[in-house]
């Protein structure tokens, strides 16, 4: 099933920050990682990733650095900042509360006798 656009839009920052939480990544790797980890659920127009990354960078949540590869090519790796980590922690907690609340509604526990 395709993810709803509004859901995708509201969660894209958290998803990107989450991916960068444990290791820096470059754009192409982020797209593949997102697709793999979500088992193909999150699949979007790949070119729109860069404006999203640059928006996060301008907000100070991530920072990008060019790194040269042995084959003379260059890649821009993105690192999460401490501000980004703090934001991610808040968002994770908000998402968990939200998901728990939705689960309680969608899957009500049978009333105890």
């Amino acid at each position, binding site marked *: 099933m395709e993810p709803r656009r509004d859901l995708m839009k509201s969660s894209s920052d958290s998803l990107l920050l989450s991916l960068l939480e444990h290791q820096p990544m*470059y*754009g*192409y790797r982020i*797209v593949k990682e997102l697709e793999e980890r979500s088992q193909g659920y999150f699949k979007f*127009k*790949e*070119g*729109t990733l*860069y*404006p*999203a990354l*640059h*928006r996060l960078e*301008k907000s100070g949540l991530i920072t990008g650095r060019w790194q040269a590869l042995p084959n003379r*090519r*260059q*890649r*821009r790796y993105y690192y999460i900042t401490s501000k980004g980590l703090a934001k991610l922690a808040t968002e994770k907690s908000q998402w968990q509360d939200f998901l728990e609340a939705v689960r309680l509604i969608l899957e009500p526990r049978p009333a105890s006798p």
Partner: protein
Amino acid sequence: MTPELVQYLENIKYRSRLGPPDETGVMSEIEAHIEDEVQELRASGLTEDEAMQVCLGQMGGAGLIARRIYEAYSQGSWTQVLLASMPHLLFGLLFVLNWWHYAGWLTLVLLLTLATTVYGWWHGKPAWVFSWLGYVLLPIIILGLLLLYLPNVWSLLTLLIYLPTAMWWLLRLIVQTTKKDWLFSSLMLLPLPIIIGWFLAISPAGKFNETSFQRLNSFAPWIGLSFIALALTIAVFIRLRQRSLRIGLLAASGLLTLTLVVYYTAGRLDTLTFLGLVLVMWGVLLVPPLLERYVRDNGRKFALRQSAPSHKYNLYWEDNIEGAGQRKR
């Protein structure tokens, strides 16, 4: 690099309207992404053409990417808001506080305008410089008006030299600004119809006399308010991310301010003059995009012909870029 990819990247570059350092960074990243993707697709057994087709499909339309890039970069900081609305505020205060009587204040504001414009122009032409640039045109208009006071033959002779020179300089300035982004040309010219409106209300014959100064005195608070309204417009403009909203804001604000000018001049501007001013306002908003298209098309045509003079490339150009060839090869 295939011609299809060249055109795709060129479209993103053209529509995202970034300054040189940001543009290089963003385009290099997108290019590197496409290279990685094509390499992986080719490894899975696709031909180069097939891989490129699939890759560009997965990347998304150039227009969509460019729009998102524009939105990521367009919003100015609060410092930029202050700097961009400052010239309108200064000119507004000159009239609201009746400082326009004093040559000292006038000279100071004009010198500050000139110095700030020159500084901004030589330091990367940031968005805020274009609202200052509009006011640099004022001394040119004032000088043109002063020439009318020369004896008849001299007035005609100097105007014959002055007018083409001033027009050439103005056009050059507009072309340079439009090369960056046509919206900045509109931003720069926005006060023009409002200044013309006030000028016609104060001195319809084009010459200043005692009555004109009396009228200027009585209209001064409203003149000031119209400039302050422009300052507010520019502040919102700098903070907005979406291009369509920015265009809408300039159009709505220009029209509203002109209506206020007509209202406050209490019948001194008739319907025909108002319509003429509205036409000038639409010119301010419609001519720059047309000029930009002309300048960019010519620039791209020249650059592509210089970089790829091969027969194959020229046919590609004719078919896909000039749009003249709807023909299929």
